[in-house]
């Protein structure tokens, strides 16, 4: 499975895309306390600025870790499974 980011990385590595695309990829990987503060404000999450600074690396780490889910293309016919479904899982 190849997602958008992986495709860009491949094209940059293969020389198909130039330094601007590589720089954009780098930039894409950076978060800042400002961004997080704005996001917290948007979500009305009660996290004080000192904590925002402390958890920034973990939020960034999560973003990398979850990219595989976020960039996955899923077919329109796949509905969410809110919980275990024995029939779907091959039982009953």
């Amino acid at each position, binding site marked *: 499975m190849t997602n958008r980011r992986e495709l860009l990385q491949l094209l940059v590595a293969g020389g198909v895309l130039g330094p601007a695309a590589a720089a954009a990829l780098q930039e894409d990987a950076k978060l800042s306390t400002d961004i*997080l503060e704005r*996001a*917290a404000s948007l*979500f009305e*999450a*009660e*996290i004080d600025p000192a*904590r925002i600074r*402390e*958890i920034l*690396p*973990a*939020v*960034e*780490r*999560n973003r*990398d*870790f*979850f990219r*595989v*889910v*976020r960039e*996955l293309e*899923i077919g329109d016919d*796949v*509905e*969410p*499974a*809110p*919980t*275990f*479904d*024995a029939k*779907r*899982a*091959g*039982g*009953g």
Partner: protein
Amino acid sequence: MQDDLVFRPARELAALVRSKELSPVEIVEAFLARIEELDPKLNAFITVTADEARRFARAAEREIASGDYRGPLHGIPYAPKDILATRGIRTTNGSKVTPDWVPGYESTITERLRRAGAVLLGKLNLLEFAMGSGVLSGFGPSRNPWHLDYSPSGSSSGSGTALAAYLTPLSIGTDTGGSIRAPAAACGIVGLKQTYGRVSRYGVTTLSWTLDHAGPMTKTVADAAAMLQVIAGRDPKDPTSSSEPVPDYEAALASGVEGLRVGVPSGYFFEGAHPEVEAAMRAAIDLLGTLGARIVEVDVPHAELAGSAGWIVAMAEASSFHEKRLRETPELFDPLVRERLETAKFYSATDYIKSLRVRTILQDEMARVFESCDVMAVPGSTELASKLDDELAARSDVKPGSTSPAFRGGNTFLGNMTGLPAITIPCGFSKGPPSLPIAIQFYGRPFDEATILRAAHAYEGATDWHRRRPAFAA
């Protein structure tokens, strides 16, 4: 008999109790003495209920003497993870947030064990709220009996430690992403995460409503079967519990693996595996073949997503569950739990729903896997037990000096995301030093715990890994 009593599996103790060759009082005294001797170095227990255990053991002795024998757990000690509510007995969740909570109700699991005559020895340590660092959790780290500088893994850390050190013959752990099976792998014991809904979650403090399971942790597969027999089945107090009939698990153990189709996936499940884990797994699969199993290749194309998607679901639900506590007393949380709950506030609803769609994909793929096999075998963990983190490293998922995501949970999270049953048992030891346990994990069809117990029991019967004792606890 007294000297080796604690080393006997629960089923052996039960046979002696039933024949009245051994009293529950003698058994309880032997384990209490061992806890007193060894636990100060292991920190497996948060609470020891010695007086209650003695009182309950005496009652069991009287009942059995008068012919009222309730079954294989009657008079046998156990200790659950301290996240199961016990009426009138402190239940800490391993946290300084709830260090003195004394529930006014009993979890269905401990209630069923009590009715079966099992004797509560105490409550076992854990990673805070089943997701902490261990090191900085409310009651400090449990230590791995195979080497005290090493982690027993988690989150059912105390259960893994206590079983490996023979401080209890039976335990109950909980498993949201692998928290029964990971300590089973790290400590060389048996961990069973049954099908979602097979066992009631009533009275088990929530981490994630849709991923949480509570199940047996034991020294042998037969002991896990005996425990499951007692705790399985519909519970009106847990609407997600299933009314699927509970079969006779002990009867299933005798069937062996002749003709059983064991699926072995390639790719993700073995990626990055420690070479000794890989070698032990291949040897275990060969042995299953020698015992008459038919080994078939299977594929779970999106297995790599189970860890990431599972983590989103687990932490999003945990962040919602702990919202009030986190707002009111954030400083009391293990720093790692606090970080995980706070960072989960930045997951979007779309992330969560997409992860639930990944759950659909994984359920469909596993249903296809079980069209061509009866059980699927994968490494219990691709790594050996690790050293306990220092306090700085324990504070965050971002480890000092590390540039890559540390978490790789797909081998176990697959079971939570699909709800399928899985059992982890020892299948070897690393050369060391220190020599550390290696484990194999069997997945099964929904509500088909009988078949994974059968496969695990057959493998266990042909090996002696489960009989090895750590030097510390020998």
